[in-house]
């Protein structure tokens, strides 16, 4: 079975704002498609009025929605290491799972803060993912997908690729 897994991350740069990256890979972790956004800087009004839900809005409803709508390959499952991206599920048809990120302290791009979205944990392949309470994928579909993914698949690693690609695409974000 051929599988397509989407990996979506949003990173924040102190000076330039938010950058979204989206990589679709096959069951052997080989790249199929890559999309990234230009820098997104919320306005002052958005900062004030969205308050603590600002990153849910920017990361999930704005950036993630834009990335997924631009993608050509439809993912069987989309994963993110950026919790606010889960808000995407509130405004779109996509199910999205959260994978706890591996922080690379040496990078200039930081993962946005934790979101307050209520999630539910489900097992997927060798890891546990968190999905929005109201949008947990059906277990049989997850199970089928798990068996299609290569046993050696490292679910953290594609996010590192995306961050490197973001730094490559936006050299201004590279750490000195």
């Amino acid at each position, binding site marked *: 079975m051929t599988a397509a897994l989407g990996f979506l991350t949003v990173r924040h740069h102190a000076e330039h704002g938010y950058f979204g990256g989206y990589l679709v890979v096959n069951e052997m972790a080989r790249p199929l498609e890559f999309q990234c956004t230009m820098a997104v800087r919320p306005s002052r009004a958005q900062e004030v009025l969205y308050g603590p839900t600002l990153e849910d809005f920017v990361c999930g409803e704005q950036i993630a929605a834009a990335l997924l709508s631009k993608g050509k390959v439809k993912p069987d499952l989309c994963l993110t290491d950026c919790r606010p991206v889960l808000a995407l599920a509130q405004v779109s*048809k996509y199910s999205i799972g959260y994978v706890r990120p591996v922080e690379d302290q040496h990078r200039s791009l930081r993962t946005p803060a934790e979101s307050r979205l209520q999630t*539910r944990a489900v097992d997927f392949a060798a890891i546990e993912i968190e999905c929005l309470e*109201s949008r947990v*994928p059906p277990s049989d579909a997850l199970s089928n997908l798990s068996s299609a993914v290569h046993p050696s698949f490292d679910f953290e690693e594609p996010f590192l690729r995306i961050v*490197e690609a973001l730094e*490559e695409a936006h050299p201004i974000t590279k750490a000195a």
Partner: protein
Amino acid sequence: MQSSQASGAAIEFVTGLQLEELTTVTLRATGWQGTLERPLEVDVQGWDLTSEAIKTAPIRLTSKRPKVVGFSFPEAVPLLSQPDPNLSSEQSGQGEPASHAEQGSRAVAPGASGKAGPPPKRKRTRIKPPVDLVKLEDRLYFVLQPPLETLAASSELGFPFEPFPYQMDGIAFLFPRETAILADEMGLGKTMQSITTIRMLLLAGQLRNILLVCPKPLVTNWVREFSLWAPEIPVTVIEGDSAKRQFIWGQKGVPVRIANYELLMRDNAFIHDSGQHFDLVVLDEAQRIKNRNSTTAETVRALPRGRSWALTGTPIENSVEDLVNIFEFLAPGYLRTDMPLKTISKATRDHILRRTKDKVLTDMPPKMYRDDQLDLTPAQNDSYRAAEDEGVVQLEDMGETLTIQHVFELVLRLKQICNFDPATGASCKLQRLEADMEEIAASGKKAIVFSQWVETLEKIADPLDRFGPMQYHGRIPSKRRDSVIQQFKEDPSKHLILMSYGAGSVGLNLQFCEYVFLFDRWWNPAIEDQAINRAHRIGAAGAVTVSRMMAAGTIEERIHDVLEQKRELFNQLFADTGVPKQTGLSRDEIFGLFNLAQPHKKHAA
């Protein structure tokens, strides 16, 4: 404006719009009655409060979608026609309720940590795009590739041995490069790194037609290494008579061809007539093209190709010109000999990968040098002194007709005497070698003896017969050489192999030998290192002892001193701050061996 008449001592004000409604003004009796009796004037001003609207300032929260750019990889094409995701809510039911989730699902508080956590940490060797790759999409193509370990595991590319981390780095270096020199020190596995990269590029569909060119004695070694590291790749060796070779060159669908340099030159016309275009040409022992005008160099430069890789442990044998000429194959015109050395160093940094054993194999057995300064036997000494004195006098008498070749001839004659006395056959080196071999054989070990002369090797063989000497040099037919190595490796009675620098210094894996004897010295330390590294390489059984034999107080000792200086210079070549310098013997140095001045300098004096 209206006014009202007030009366009485106290005043009650009633405000309102109708002044007529002011009904009573009470005045009390005080001393101020007169003033109080004066009519009261009241000014009234009205405001129309009901008509004033509340002002609002609207703040619009625009939700303009961010601009997105991206691209698809070739592997995505088959998936583009697939139906929508089976996990999207359109198929799985909009807003799958939590109760439908699988049994193992659990509510998670924000910030709580997951159950499984990350898998065990593994090394991730990432492919980095070359510096000169400009187009973003091309750069991202490499940046977004999975780590090599993932590629290997997911494709189930088996390895006979776990590659060393630095070897994975070497593969990651070669993978994205159109032009590359893998200049690792001998023994670090340039062959394996090249083969594995080729394997991965074939798998990725980036290569289909590869030509590998190597010295003739190494062809079988390459075939063997391919069968070890990439058994699934069919390899075709260019060999046989002219008709057969022409047929092989013309074959389609052959992923890997291996040709030796000599046949390549001979088959130049076949290659071009066949219309072949190679996706990759790999030159092994690429120092073979260090002479820009040689037929070999011209032939390989004319090969129709995409990628060009050069493998060599000695990209600079004598001067920076060697490197410039290798680059003429990789990227014609990229370097010029008149460029400042620092500019060359900077320009080549991203194209050359060189690692040394001491840097990457910290746990490899040590390599110990032993300089055996031996006194000539009396017979040798007499012959040597006579030859040197007579030779130097002759050279001095030649005056302006003296050339460097004359000096070379004397050097060679003296070196041969240092090996064996031409009159008696006496040899201080052979005596020492015999003594050492007794000990080596007794402990069940094996040794390699290098000489630049086949005659010397043959002379050594007889007296050392009890140690089962094998011979590997230019007089041993190519077809027999593999069996010689095999027998030496497997037969416990064979403790010694006699090799010429020319035949035995490259491409052979003799890591089961713990002793190397340099019976005489080569002109260039890089060649000596190649020879030594036949034994001191990955898989070496133990410490390798290198005995450098030299006759004390002779030309050999003088050459040794110069070579040591050269070795120091070579070690600086690839240091970040080092500036490449000449490593070969200069004319001055050669004449200086006998304290001779060069003819034109004599003239000038």
